[in-house]
Each structure stands twice: as C-alpha cells, then as structure tokens.
C-alpha cells in the first residue's frame, strides 16, 4: 500500500514537473492527471498549489468549473450521452432515461460491477448524427436503444 502511494506521489510530481514550464499550466496538469489516474486525486491538490503558487481555493474553483474533472475514479469505461438540443430533439432524452432506468443508475452513477459510469454531456459536435454518445474516447452517432445496449454490453455493464 505504502509502495503504491509513493509511486503515485512520484507520478503526480512527474506530471506536474512535465507541464509546469507551460504558459497556463494548470489545465494541462489536470488533464494529464485525469488521463493517468482516471480522476484528479486529492493528494495532487497540495503539490499543484505548491508548484503553481496558487491557493487551494483557486484550484477548487478551476476543478469545479469543469464538469469533466472527477475527484473520484470513474468506472472502467465512461459512457457519455448527449443531452443537448439537437440530440434531445431526436429522442436522446428518452434514450438516456431508458438507459439509466435499465442500469438502475442516476447521472454520474457507476454500475455495481465498476464497469461503466454514465455521464451527461452537452454537445459532442455530432448534431447531424443525433442522438450521439461517446464511449470512452470513441464518439458514436445515431444511437438507439439497440445500439446502446450493444455498446454497454461491450464494455461489460
């Protein structure tokens, strides 16, 4: 346990160091942390504040501004369903409701087996192919119940 903590700390320090020379390094650091850990670990807050010389309040302000940054790990896969206007118009809202009901989750919830987290997203830029969804980093257009079931089955929900 201690071992893994130390290596986490090292990794956090490495990520911060790798980006701190950038202009406006905070967002790149947060993205890199989220890529590495699946979330922005609380243990990274103090080192970030220290490295960038900002207060913990400022860091909280930035992290909380972006819904994409998580403070706890998500499931192994993240499925995002678009809730913006075009997708809603094409039945996205009903689709999302049915998926949540089927999985017994609320937005941001994770299935009991830890496989999938369902998140809302507001526009994936796929309005022409609405309704749209995104599985991990792969966008999917023209989803319907069948297609979504298949996707969820693929990721083990």
């Amino acid at each position: 346990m201690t071992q893994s903590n130390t290596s986490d700390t090292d990794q956090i320090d490495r990520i911060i160091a790798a980006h701190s020379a950038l202009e406006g390094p905070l967002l790149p650091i947060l993205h890199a942390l989220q890529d590495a850990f699946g979330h922005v670990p609380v243990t990274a807050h103090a080192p970030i504040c220290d490295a960038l010389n900002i207060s913990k309040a400022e860091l909280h302000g930035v992290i909380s501004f972006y819904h994409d940054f998580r403070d706890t790990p998500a499931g192994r896969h993240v499925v995002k369903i678009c809730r913006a206007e075009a997708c809603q118009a094409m039945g996205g809202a009903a689709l999302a409701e049915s998926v949540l009901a089927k999985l017994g989750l609320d937005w941001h919830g994770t299935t009991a087996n830890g496989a999938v987290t369902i998140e809302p997203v507001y526009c994936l830029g796929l309005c022409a192919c609405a309704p749209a969804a995104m599985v991990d980093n792969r966008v999917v257009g023209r989803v319907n119940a069948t297609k979504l079931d298949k996707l969820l089955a693929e990721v083990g929900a």
Partner: protein
Amino acid sequence: MKDFIIPPADWKDERDMGTPAKQGAPVTLTIDGFEVTVPEGTSVMRAAAEAGIQVPKLCATDSLEAFGSCRLCVVEIEGRRGTPASCTTPVAPGMVVRTQSDNVRKIRRGVMELYISDHPLDCLTCSANGDCELQDMAGAVGLRDVRYTAPEGGMATHFAPRNTSGEANPEWRPKDDSNPYFSYDPAKCIVCNRCVRACEEVQGTFALTIEGRGFDSRVSFGAKTDDALTSDCVSCGACVQACPTATLQEKSVIEMGTPDRAVVTTCAYCGVGCSFKAELQGDQLVRMVPYKHGKANRGHSCVKGRFAYGYASHKDRILNPMIRDNVSDPWREVSWDEALSFAATKMRGIQAEYGQKSIGVITSSRCTNEETYLVQKLARAVFGNNNTDTCARVCHSPTGYGLGQTFGTSAGTQDFDSVEHTDVVIIIGANPTDGHPVFASRLKKRLRAGAKLIVIDPRRIDLVKSAHIKAAHHLPLRPGTNVAVVTALAHVIVTEGLMDEAFIRARCDWDEFQDFAAFVSDPRHAPEATEMLTGVPATELREAAKLFATGGNGAIYYGLGVTEHSQGSTTVMAIANLAMLTGNLGRPGVGVNPLRGQNNVQGACDMGSFPHELPGYRHVKHADVRDLFGRVWGVEIDPEPGLRIPNMLDAAVDGTFKGLYCQGEDILQSDPDTKHVAAGLAAMECVIVHDLFLNETANYAHVFLPGSTFLEKDGTFTNAERRINRVREVMKPRNGCADWQITQMLANAMGANWSYMHPSQIMDEIALTTPSFAGVSYTLLEEKGSVQWPCNADHPDGTPLMHVDGFVRGKGRFIVTEYVATDEKTGPRFPLLLTTGRILSQYNVGAQTRRTENVIWHEADLLEIHPHDAENRGLNEGDWVKLASRSGETTLRAKITDRVSPGVVYTTFHHPDTQANVITTDYSDWATNCPEYKVTAVQVSPSNGPTEWQEDYAAQAAQARRILPAAE
C-alpha cells in the same frame, strides 16, 4: 452649466465611486449634459460619480477593479452600439454619455428582476435591512414585480430550504457560522464576485473562489471540504466589507441590528495605525469598519482591528480603583480620591525617605500621545527626575539611535503609499503578514504587480512563498548574525561597484564613505567568508545584493528581528548604510522603514518617554531645551538623564528605587528575564498599575488605576509612517475617566496644579514646545484627517517623505558596522537557538486579544521545531516539551515544522501561562539596552506538563488577583 474639474479629495466623502481612482492626463466628456474632466483611464461610472451622478451597480465597488458582471450599470454612449457597462468602459475625450433612458431603465429593471427571482424576499427580517445594496438598487431601478417563479416540480432557487410539500431543496446550503466574527449565508448570495475579488485584490490571501459554473456557481471558502475557518481565510473582513448583501455579514450586526451613528477613529493594535469607523447604537459598539480614506490602510483592515475589540467590554475589565498595603493582600475597591491620595502619599513618602530619584514612570506605547506626554511630564515636572522610560526600550529603541546617528532623525523615511512605487523590497527581521497585516496586503499587491522581494529571516515566513507571492531570495540566517549578513550585502555592492556614487557624493559625507568602503571591502566581509557563520549561502546573498542594487527603487522594511539583538543598533545603522549606498532615499518607493510594533510606539518615543530625551528627541543635557520646558511647566528640569527600565529594576533589587507608575504596559510579561523583573517589582514599596486588566505586573502592584480603552477617549496616535491620527471618544469611559484625566488627577494629588480640560490643550502644549509638532493642532487634524510630522512652518501639511533634498543631520553618515557575536552562545547544555515572534490573531502580551474570540486561531503558544531536532529528541507533534535556557525554563507544546531551520526553535509570547520571557536572557543592545529577545540558547526536552515555576507563578497570580467583595 456646472463644470467639474477633478474635485479635491474630501476625506469625509464616503460615496462609493464604483471603480478605483486613476492617474493620467485629464479627459473631458459629457455625462447627462454635464461636462466632467477626469484622469485618463477612469471608468465612465467613476466619472459620473465625480459629477454627482450615481449609476446603479452591484458588482462594482471602488476598492476593486471593475468586473462587469452584473450588467446593472449599463449606459448609452453616443456613437457606440448597444449599452456598454459603465464600470468597464474607460472615458474618452468628447464622449457623450447618458446614464438614464427608457432603454437602459428597462434593461436594468429586467436584470434586477432576474436577481430578485433567486433572492429571498425577507428584507424586513434580514440582517442587512437598511444596509443592503441589492435593496437600494431594487429601489433605484424601480423594480415593482417579479414575474419569474420556480417551475412546478423542480425548485430552481438557491434560497428556499424546502418546497411547499416539505421536500428538501438540493440547491439550498446552510449558513457557514464557523468564523467567530462573520457568517456566510449562501441563500442571500447574488454571486457578484466582490468577496472573491476583495480576498484576492485587497487582502491577497486568495481564500475564496467561485465554485461550479452557471446556475451552480457558489462562493466557496477554500477547497471543497473547507468551511470559513478551515480555509486559508485570515478573517481580515475585506470580503464582509465588499459584500453588497447580507451574505457575508458581521455576527454583531446579525445580533444587534444596523448601527445608527459612526465615529472615525484609529485602531489601537499595531503600528500601521489603520483608520476605522466605529459604528454604534447609542453607546454600544456594533462594528468596526475600515475607513476608506484612512491614509495608512486605504480601506483595509486585519482580524485584530476589524473584529477583536471585544476586550473593551470583557468581564475581566476592572472599572474601579483598587489599593492594598501588601501584594499578598487581596485588592480593596475604593473611590478615586482614596486611591489617588493613597498613591500620592506613598510616592511622596518614598521620595522623602529614599530621595527624589527613587521613583519613576513607564509610559505606554498603547496610550495616546497626549497621555504619554503627561506621564513623562509627571516624572519630570512632579517627581522632579528623568526616570521615565517606555516599552519602546524593548522594541525600537535601536531604531531611534541608529537612524538618529545616520540620518539625523529617529523615524521611518516613507509613508505606506510609498510601497506602491517600489521595485525591490528587503524584509528583514519582520513578519508583516502576521505583525503588520494591512501593510503586508499592500506589499503583496505590489509584489503581484511585479516588484521583487528579498526576505532575510531565520524562519520561512509566509511572504517567502504564498499564493502568487514568491521571494526572489530568502536568506535564512542564523539568529544573531544580522550585522554580518547586511555588511556582506554592502560588501558585494561596494566590491562589484554597484553603489550609487552620484547620490553618495551629493548627499553623504564622502570621507566617511571612504572609510566605510574600505571597511566593507575587506575580504572577511565577503559572503563566502561569512557563510559558515551566518548559514546564508554565498551565491544567494550575492544575487540578492545585486538585485537590490540594480533592481530600481529599493525599499527596506524591518522589524524587531533587527532591533532586539545585542547588536540591534548596529544592524539599524547597517541598514541605513545599505540604503545610502544604493541611493535609495528621499523619493517614493525607497527608504528605510521600521515596522513599529505597537500603535503608538513612534508617538511614545516622540513624546519624550526616554530618560535622556525631552519631547522631540532633545537631550536633557541641553540647557536651552530644559529652559523651554522649565518655563512652560514652571519647574526646574533635572539635567541628569534618568533610569532606563532595566536600570530601574536593577536599582529596585539594590533597594534604591522604590516606586513606579506603570501606564498601560505589562513589563512582567513583555520584558526579558521574567524572574528578574518579578524580583525588581517585589522589591518596590509602591507599584501603581494603570491598565484595563489585572495584568501580570499588577500581581506586584499596590495601587490599581482602571484605564480607559481607545474607544473611550480623545487623543492622537502616531503610526510607523510618522502619521498623527486622531483617536476619538466613541463612547464615555466605562471606568469613569479617560487615562489623561487619571494621570492629571495623580499629578494634582501629588501637588501639581494641572488643569487640562481636553487633550487638544495638551497637543497645543506639545506643539508649543516641540519643533517637529509645531504646526499640529486638533483643528488641522480635523481638516486634513491626519498629518505626518515634521509639521511646522516649513511643512504646514506635514512630511510624507523625509530627507528629500538633504538629510535632517545635513550629510548622511556612513558608520562602520563591525560584527560582534552575541555572548549568548549555544553549547552542549543549550544547543538550540530560540527566537521569538508573534502571530496574526494575537497581539503582544495578548491582554487584549486573549479576551476576544481570536483565541479560536491561537489558544496557546507553541514551540516550532525542525523535524530533525524533534526526531533527535523523540518529540512528536503536540507533545509537551520543556524549554530551558540559563535564565529559566517553561513548558509548552511542540509544533514540528520545517519553517524553522535545524538548530533554531521559535515561539510566541502571547500567553502568560507560557511565559516565554522566563527563558530570555538579560543580554541587550550595546547602545540602547534593547533586550536580546531574538537569540537565546536553549535546550528542548520531553516533559509531562507545566514546570514548577509555572505552577508557582500561577498560584502567586491567583493569590494576587483576589478582590475583596465590596463593603456595604
């Protein structure tokens, strides 16, 4: 048509101008048909306000830069499309602005309607009722109806805890009452961002943020899990001051209601001397609000001045005079007459038996100039000796001596505004964020704007690194090696040819400079040579010296970490040398700036509190000065300097000094080597303590005269920038008399015939006798708000900057500063060096702040120790430890931190049950006897609890504090 040409700043004009004042070339524009001329860069909003036209606003206030978020201040500008926000639009020549039209009225009303749709309509029961900008603006824009309601099913408001069916509203958040002085009620928040910006721009702590976005945006203290108390918040009150609604509100206002009258006065804590508005209902103080036209604080405050005034009405305060024959007896409450005649008889009796010089006074740096003047006059005119001293002896007496010798006058050279023009700052032996917080905020603002900082301090103080502030160089010297470090800086500057030769040739004595240059050029002063001694890396020191010499306007600010050493005066002179060497004197942004510890330390020194100096720093050996005072006072003045505090105590132990009148100072707790002080006091036959509380010194007193607080009297305080600020009687003295009246009654009981009716008469006498105060009068202070001495025929408006064209003494004098190590050395028995300081929430001996809610931040003194030293000794965080020196020992709890270097430990002296001064030794400054608080060789070891001395002391104190129940 009325033509407005930048109206003169009226110090009583309290309107909110919306955005900060700017400086620049004049620009003329037309607002609502009126021509207005304002400096370039001014906002349209401020220009309108200058013309007397208030544009409605919510997110703007003149202490903060414009933000442009509320959209209430929109105006129409001819030739521009749309309706620009007047707060973010700068003026332009010939601009034609209309602040009112059907269109903007409609926009404003619409904006207001949206605000109010998410704001509770509980104005009548709201704590800000009558003092709410949202309420005012709703009135100003003529809001009559709110069409928007929360939709069925969901509750789209932040303020309703539950809907009508009793379901909880997830958007509602409870009040945060964790701070003892103010509450944060998210339900009332309009997210105008003023609090967040105040914390960032004004205070510089960055403790607040807006979390979330859109409808979820909320003001948040610190990180996600923090509340106001656990965040970085320092409780300065800037956010509360900035809040336009009841969201951030003083708890005293919530409890008592809005105040109905206000008096402008001066804070009685540190030497910054902030101006405050005391706001009251009748004689009940509701709150203290920083006064925006205060020239020292410019509308800012710290937790002490803003909130920690509760001691004035604390139950421990003594309100009746008390006497006793022996210190082992309980106190007896008596009438003023009885107490004063008892005291007078005793003092005169002592003089009859032991001689005229067997009694003396200690003046207070916390009382007013007028009171201090009277107390020293009591010694000189009534006692007939010069036995007067003041607590400046134990803090800034080396400043007086050092700056007197080099520049010719004993005071800081600048005003606080000067920091706005500085490029490189050296902070040495001071911790402004804790000791002088309002100055620190102004400094931090300048640092964020790009000025560089060099910190010379054994501890890693907050200024070394905190949000958006980072010192370019931190020189963590070993305590006691100031002179070596500052001389090494001079060595680098001289040997690398970075000095300002033109300035030195023009302004200083060139021959003396040659001697000085030869002295500092000696390789033994090179940073490489002194590195072993000082612990400061040579390369770091070299870089710091080069930065200071070449970085532009260089200012030096220093505190007691400079003066409270055996070479305190030498360090002050070394600092003065450094400023002259680099030509950093006589203009804004530079200078030598002592940060005075107490509110009126400068004034107490000015008023002749020292045994060798009459008011205005004139030596008693000069017959002409004695004659002047002799004529005014109608007495013969003793030409012999009197006793300093340590001499008084030594003489008391020897049996030749028997009576002391000690006003507003707790020498037993604040002076070094507590046991020696206790022995001295115990040996006296009459100790008169004049204070608010039964302080530690009062444990050895025979007469107790209850004092009045700064809220209860008229007078003046002189702050660190020589600024004479008015203290005004906000309420009548609860003890019946102001302190100056009490001193006068004592003098008259001893046969004097004083008849001052008001402190202004005392100031008139000071002006009459003291050249640097010649132009000062209460009328002038009333007119100007405040004035910086010298104020006389040559400088009728006072003197913000000293030594502009030449030094007061003529040519600036370089003095050779040889480093002589203190005799206080570490060794096998005492291997660590103790240095002392203070923290933000407590003040000095804590007599005031310990009697306020400030204890929530600091309930006991802690010993800071480096993890290495702690591990060697088997100490853990929070353990009881014994701290021992050759003078004594005490116990306190350990705090393990790498803010101190290995080999150095640090504590504060705010709590009498710790008595850090039991540890400090009797070594003192060679020139002025200022005690060496900052260096004591100590040992630290594990302990089980209080030492025997602490227990004996507590028992004696309890015994000595008994008061007999009133007769009848």
